[in-house]
Each structure stands twice: as structure tokens, then as C-alpha cells.
């Protein structure tokens, strides 16, 4: 009779324990181990120490039996969702036992937290967050070609980037095929669409170069830094590179119209048209719609064309010329357009010239302003001597006593960042 009681009691562990072996409680891992993005933390209740009976029980601090119970619970929870307990440590001061769970591939941290939070045994679930030391940001970008960029000096790009980077601003680059996989551009695109038809090449020079000026990744140890490196580009191919002679880039009314319509439909905030041609009724109407919706349209100025070419000549469109040109109309802005290092198909970089790239600079600048102000209302500031854009003054108030660096610092303080 006694046997049955003993066997019944010894059978209890079989009833309660998981089929998986209980995981050993490891000493807490290094902080670096914990900072993996595929991990979440769950907290189980750690009951206060109390009498548990059994005079031979050593009563060790941490209470081995109840720790084993929570390990068992955590393993069960983890297995239910395809996760795995990777480490655990009790925190008696908080009354919780903390378990780090590795997520299976395909399960995001947010999804995991939503699932785990539903379990009643879980006090709370949270991600493993990353924190960085505030040792100070080096003043210069570490893009090797940065110092060769005219915008580096003329626009004090690295100073501006301490304050704004065009984060999340949607810029439609309507141009030839951009090399989306270029190391200085990969990941910068939210859309890749073709409106030309036929075989789509891997990359074309004009579009790739324009995209690089606007949003090449900054501080990635490669190449150049775009004017708005955190902007979201929409790669809309409406132009193609011809293979004859000087290989100009050409676009047609139809391809441009489709691309502009797409950009408007997909909530582009800025449309960059580094191209020029004859006035066009269809494109004119589409650009009216864009302007009415508050989309900033930037176009390249063509000095050789009447009124500077279309769409630059359209009122409301921001026309930009290479500032190294002799002269340009009062309604046109000057921006860097000569000796511009930018991205080249094949994962390379090269030097370009032209108002196309000046326009691209301004598209990037408008993205910076949009991040700062959150709206399309802006005033592009000019240098005192001529119609060359003063990028810093467009964003913050500079004066003779407070230069760009000083003004940006003030703006950062006001915004609450340091």
C-alpha cells in the first residue's frame, strides 16, 4: 500500500515535467550575447521566499525547486511558439525571473511579443534593446569621397546631417534605370518600377548617378554621402540610355506621364525630374495635380532651351541650374553641378557634371526641409551674392555671429536632441 503512495509521488515529476529535458540555468551571458535582434525577454513571477517544508531542504538562495518550476514553464511557453530558452536569470529585487527566448526564423520581435503577452504566466514580454554610448559623433562623414563632394564644403553636409537626414521622406526619382544593388544605394528604395517597357537593363548611368546624389548612404565607409541619406527613394524608370554616340538618356511623354501618375498615386513627397524637353500638355496637367497636392517638383534647367526647357519653365516647379554656369534666370536656383562624385553602375563611383545633378542636390535638400518642417511650405535661402542656394540657411537661421555649425547646435537643443 505504501508502495503505491511512493510510486504516485515519484510519478508526479513525469506528469509535470516537459518531455524536453530541463534546460540548465546558465550564468548570465555577456551583454553582447543578449543584444541579438532575434530574441525577446519574458518575465515570470518569482514568488517571495517562503517555507517549503522538508527539513533536509537546503533552502538555498534562489530556491532551486521553484526555479526549476519556472524553467519548466518557460520551456513550455517557448516550445509552444517554436522558440527556445537561451538563458535565464532571477531578479528577486523585482520579483521576476527573466528568460531570454530565441525566435525562430520568420517570426518578428513584435509578433513574438504579441503572442507571448497573451500567456497568463508571463508578467510581461519585451524586446532586447540596443543602447549606444554617447561618446560623441565624429564631425566628418566616413564616406571616402565625401571631401571631394562640392556639397561637403558648400552645403556643410556633415553638419546638416547631425540635425536632419531626410528620414522617411519619399522622393520619386523619375529617370533611367537605377542600380538598386549598388553598395552605396542598396536599401534606400521603397519602390522599383519600370514605365518604359521592353527588356529592363540592370542599371543605367544617369538614373544611378542622380539617385546617388540624392540619397547615397552616409557613414557606410563607402563612396559618397547623399544629401538626404535617410530618404526613401522610389526608383521609377521612365527614361532609357541609348546606345548611339554620346549615349544620351531619353524619355518619352508616355513613359513620363505614367511615372508621374504613379508617383502621385503612391504619395511621393518630392518628384525629381533631371530632364528637359518641349512643353507638353499631358505632363503639364499631371504636374498641376502634383503641385496642387503639395508635392515638390524639382527639374533641371536647360540654358540652351527656350525659357530653360520643360518642366523647368513651369511655374511652381523648382528649376535648378549648375551653379558653375555663367548666368541663369532669376527664377532658377543654383546648386552644385560640377565635378560631382556619385554612384556609377557596376558598384563604382565617378565624377559627373550637369544641371541634372544640381537638381538632384535640391531634391535632397527639400527632403531635409520636409523632415524638419513636416510640410511643403518652405523658403529656399540664397547666398547674398547671387542666386546660389544656401543650404544651411534654408534649414536654420544663420547670421554673422552664429554660423552653420552654431545654428545647427541651437536647433538641435531646441528640438531636445543633444
Amino acid at each position, binding site marked *: 500500500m*505504501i*508502495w503505491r*503512495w*511512493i510510486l504516485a*509521488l*515519484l510519478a*508526479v*515529476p513525469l506528469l*509535470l*515535467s516537459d518531455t524536453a529535458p*530541463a*534546460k*540548465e*540555468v546558465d*550564468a548570465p551571458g555577456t551583454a553582447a550575447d543578449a543584444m541579438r535582434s532575434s530574441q525577446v525577454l519574458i518575465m*515570470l*513571477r518569482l*514568488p*517571495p*521566499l*517562503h*517555507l*517549503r*517544508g*522538508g*527539513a*533536509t*531542504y*537546503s*533552502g*538555498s*538562495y*534562489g530556491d*532551486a*525547486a*521553484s*526555479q*526549476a*518550476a*519556472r*524553467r*519548466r*514553464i518557460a520551456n513550455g511557453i517557448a516550445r509552444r511558439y517554436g522558440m527556445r530558452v537561451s538563458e535565464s536569470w532571477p531578479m*528577486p*529585487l*523585482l*520579483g521576476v525571473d527573466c528568460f531570454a527566448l530565441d525566435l525562430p526564423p520568420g517570426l518578428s520581435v513584435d509578433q513574438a511579443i504579441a503572442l507571448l503577452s497573451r*500567456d*497568463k*504566466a508571463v508578467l510581461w514580454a519585451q524586446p532586447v534593446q540596443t543602447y549606444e554610448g554617447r561618446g560623441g559623433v565624429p564631425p566628418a562623414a566616413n564616406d571616402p569621397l565625401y571631401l571631394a563632394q562640392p556639397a561637403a564644403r558648400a552645403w556643410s553636409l556633415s553638419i546638416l546631417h547631425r540635425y536632419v537626414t531626410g528620414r522617411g521622406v519619399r522622393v520619386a526619382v523619375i529617370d533611367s534605370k537605377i542600380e538598386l544593388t549598388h553598395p552605396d544605394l542598396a536599401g534606400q528604395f521603397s519602390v522599383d518600377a519600370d514605365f518604359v517597357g521592353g527588356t529592363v537593363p540592370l542599371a543605367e548611368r544617369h538614373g544611378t548617378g542622380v539617385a546617388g546624389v540624392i540619397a547615397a548612404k552616409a557613414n557606410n565607409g563607402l563612396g559618397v554621402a547623399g544629401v538626404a541619406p535617410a530618404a526613401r527613394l522610389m526608383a521609377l524608370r521612365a527614361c532609357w540610355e541609348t546606345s548611339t554616340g554620346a549615349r544620351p538618356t531619353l524619355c518619352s511623354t508616355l513613359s513620363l506621364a505614367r511615372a508621374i501618375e504613379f508617383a502621385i498615386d503612391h504619395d511621393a513627397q518630392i518628384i525629381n525630374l533631371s530632364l528637359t524637353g518641349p512643353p507638353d500638355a499631358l505632363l503639364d496637367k499631371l504636374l498641376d495635380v502634383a503641385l496642387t497636392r503639395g508635392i515638390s517638383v524639382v527639374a533641371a534647367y536647360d540654358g540652351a532651351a527656350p525659357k530653360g526647357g520643360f518642366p523647368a519653365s513651369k511655374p511652381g516647379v523648382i528649376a535648378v541650374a549648375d551653379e558653375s554656369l555663367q548666368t541663369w534666370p532669376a527664377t532658377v536656383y543654383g546648386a552644385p553641378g560640377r565635378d560631382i562624385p556619385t554612384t556609377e553602375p557596376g558598384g563604382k563611383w565617378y565624377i559627373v557634371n550637369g544641371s541634372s545633378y544640381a537638381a538632384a542636390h535640391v531634391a535632397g535638400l527639400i527632403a531635409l526641409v520636409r523632415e524638419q518642417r513636416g510640410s511643403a511650405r518652405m523658403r529656399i535661402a540664397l547666398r547674398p551674392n547671387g542666386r546660389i542656394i544656401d543650404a544651411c540657411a534654408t534649414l536654420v537661421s544663420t547670421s554673422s555671429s552664429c554660423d552653420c555649425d552654431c545654428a545647427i547646435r541651437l536647433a538641435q537643443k531646441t528640438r531636445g536632441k543633444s
Partner: protein
Amino acid sequence: MLILALPVSILGAPGAHAQVAGRVSIDSQYRSRGYQITESSPVVTATISYDHSSGVYAGAVVIAGVQGSEIGVAGYEANIGYAARLTRALSIEAGVQRTAYARRSGGPLGLRYTELYAGLTFRAITARVYYSPDYLRPGRNTLYTEVDGSVRLLPRLNFNAHLGALSDLGTPPPFTARTRIDWRATISQSLGPFEIYTSLSGRGSGADYYARSKGRAVATVGAAFAF
């Protein structure tokens, strides 16, 4: 055996708000409050404890020993109580415990007492007082006071020290001091869910009915599995 059935049925379907823990151990002796409890050596102990998120907890221990060629129940302990944190480092508890030991495994559980207890735990040190109105025989009022402390020597090596004093509130039995001291020092090493430990325990003056050795300090060893 009714007391034993109670915690088993509580755990029948553990609510998601409760934690159930178990432990099985084998020890060279079962010593409580400085005394070897039964003739049997070694003993197997099975413990179940239940922690509800409200702070209510319950537990049961069954001690079994080998007597001759049979395994017999040598005793049980069951308790139910409530524990709560007052501050991050301080917690309190109170409850009632029923203890019954047999002089021989499989024999009648003649050494019985019920105690009301209250305790305070600060970090790893616990102090508890137990009041019994029927310590080992009806009408005998006793107060047992104990202090228990643990310190982690290494990540998995733990040292625990225990000091207790049993006081008769009325007239003590013949040849029994009014207050009897007991102490125990334990070193335990955990290996995952397993634990091995060795204890040295002893007592103050007073007859030890079951003592094998004349000395007052006895060493024991044991191993446990927690789940």
C-alpha cells in the same frame, strides 16, 4: 493520508497563475531541528509546492525510509500559507504547518504537531517563529524560533546556515531543557536541475532518541532533483 491528497488535488490542473514545483531527494538521514527523526537511513523525500500569484502557497513533503526489506512512510509535513513582498528586499509570510513523523518507517505516525508560523525574509535571510499548542503531545505549548541564511559562494555553490531554538512555554517534559538549540550548516552544489549537498547539524543538550553517535554534530549527505 488526507493531508497528502489535498495538495495533490490542488495541483490537479494548475492555473496559469500558479507555479507548481517538485523535488525528490535522497538523504543519508532525515534530520529536523537537530534530531534524526526516524531509525531509517537513508530516506527518500518527495516535495510538492504550489505558488499562486495571489501569494497563497501550499506544500507537502512525504518522507519514506527503508525498514527491513520494505519501504515505508516515515513521516509527512504539509503547510499552507501566504507570502507577500513588502519592499523589494523584504517579504513576510504566515501559515500553518502539520508535521507527523513515525519512529519507524511504516509505523504509526506518533510524533505529531501542528504549528502556526510567521516569518520575515530580508534578501537571503529568513527569521521564523512557530507556535504549537500540541507539540508531540496534546497540551504542550512550544515556540520554535529559527534564523536561516544563504550565501552564494560561487555561481552554483551555495552555503546555508540555520539556527533554531525550541522553547517550552509551559513546563517542559522530564529531562528536557526548557530551550533547546539546534543548528545546521549546509553546502550545496547545483548541476542543472540536480543538487548535491552535505550538511553538518547538531543540537544543544537533550536526549537524542535516535542518535547513532554520541556526539552532538552529525554529518549527512544528500542529492536532489528539482522539477
